[in-house]
């Protein structure tokens, strides 16, 4: 790890302003992803602002009938909240499908959204990676690409976003609340939080430098059957090859977001109109324009079959 100076944030506004004006500053909350990357010198912040003391750890009802989840709510606490378990089961299921018990006790809501890819070439500092070192190339394309992206990717990067939680939030139409360094606030639909790589895969989100996530809000519950189905190489504590987050209503209509296949939770609202016609029709719309490698083309079939299983489970 490179040496860094450290401070505890005293307010969101000050933290955002300081981060914007001090080069090499990072916020640290749970730290489970950032410290891992700092040990490998993939992240080398010169200054850390510890945001754990800012509160932001409550889950409150909103006037619209939804929930406002503080940025620092731990994954365990979010998954265990009885309102989430009852009304947003998809989110609870996605959270407990991710990481390990120890990690979920530390990992935060905002940190989970902002975690970096687990592409093996991003982690291997001996390999070129446009995300880690812009302009150096992509060793994943033509390399070991089995776990990597099949859609939304580019000639510069085929990394996936690794989160399970974010996939559920995408299906639930969550909104990300932030404070900018100038003190103004904004609400970003989760669909617009993660950018596609294009020619600049190192720019991963719509956040400005120093912009601080304070909360994630969920609209009022939409009912239906909530299913999160994660397919992975081992039964627990592994990232998704493919995951399906679905809310399916009694009449067969519903929503689907897919994890493990793209640089962001993948959802195509237009494809959902085909839900009463079955998984094949939905998958066709969801995966239109996919560009898999020869190693990960199986994911296209896997999405359709996993979705078929989820839809059958919802009918049962």
């Amino acid at each position, binding site marked *: 790890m490179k*040496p860094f100076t450290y401070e505890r944030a005293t307010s969101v506004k000050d933290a955002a302003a300081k981060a914007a004006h001090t080069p090499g500053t990072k916020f*640290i909350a749970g730290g489970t992803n950032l*410290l891992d990357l700092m040990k490998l010198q993939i992240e080398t912040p010169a200054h850390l602002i510890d945001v754990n003391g800012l509160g932001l750890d409550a889950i409150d009802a909103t006037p619209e009938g939804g929930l406002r989840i503080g940025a620092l709510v731990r994954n365990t606490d979010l*998954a265990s909240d009885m309102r989430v378990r009852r009304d947003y089961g998809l989110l609870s299921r996605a959270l407990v499908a991710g990481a390990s*018990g*120890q*990690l979920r006790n*530390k990992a935060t809501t905002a940190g989970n959204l902002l975690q970096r890819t687990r592409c093996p070439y991003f982690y291997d500092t001996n390999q070129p990676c446009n995300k880690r070192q812009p302009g150096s190339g992509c060793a994943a394309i033509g390399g070991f690409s089995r776990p990597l992206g099949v859609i939304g990717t580019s000639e510069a990067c085929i990394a996936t976003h690794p989160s399970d939680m974010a996939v559920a939030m995408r299906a639930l139409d969550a909104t990300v609340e932030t404070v900018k360094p100038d003190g103004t606030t904004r609400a970003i639909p989760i669909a617009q939080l993660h950018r596609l790589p294009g020619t600049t895969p190192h720019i991963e989100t719509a956040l400005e430098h120093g912009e601080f996530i304070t909360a994630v809000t969920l609209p009022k519950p939409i009912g239906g059957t909530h299913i999160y189905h994660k397919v992975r190489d081992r*039964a*627990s504590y592994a990232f998704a090859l493919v995951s399906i987050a679905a809310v399916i209503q009694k009449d067969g209509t519903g929503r689907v977001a897919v994890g493990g296949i793209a640089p962001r939770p993948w959802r195509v609202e237009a494809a959902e109109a085909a839900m009463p016609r079955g998984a094949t029709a939905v998958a066709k719309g969801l995966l239109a324009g996919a560009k898999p490698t020869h190693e990960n083309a199986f994911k296209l079939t896997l999405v359709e079959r996993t979705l078929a299983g989820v839809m059958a489970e919802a009918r049962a």
Partner: protein
Amino acid sequence: MDGIHDLELSRRGMMIGTAATAALPTIAMAEAPPPRPQPAPSMAQVSLEVNGKPQQLELDTRTTLLDTLREHLQLTGTKKGCDHGQCGACTVIVNGRRINSCLTLAVMHQGDKVTTIEGLGTPDHLHPMQAAFIKHDGYQCGYCTPGQICSAVSVLNEIKEGVPSHVSASLTDAPQPTNMEMRERMSGNICRCGAYSNIAEAMAEVAGAQA
């Protein structure tokens, strides 16, 4: 604090000595890399409570909680396995919750209460989980065991508090300490000797006694 401590000739001491000897030829053959300019380490004062005892330390901000326990407080029961949160050997209990001590900085734990394997029980007064691990042969080499035990104690608490898991059939019913629940919840603790089935039996015994 003095970095060098009198250690009795222990298995740990033997292993350190052996490793250093074995590494010598490699070091002699490698060319010394030119020194790179490094920013000076940044130091910070940290006070925290470990196993009921207040501790005040001045640490490089880079020091993980794991290295603080092992290298500064000589609590070597907590083990360094992968140092990246993948193996669970470093699991300790902070403010009542299990975490990977390798993936957190000591400076982030100002005022926190840390419990390590040394604080759970002693050879004369074993924690019930320690006794159950011995009774059920819940280990072979023992390296992952402190982490396994800290995790196992926390898992039973998490089930009691109603924290759901990936294998819980219902999200709204209270989870039960079944074999499947134990196995899923312990997946962050790897055991290369493969003592998993006996660990689950040890946990089942303690869970049964609590019920």
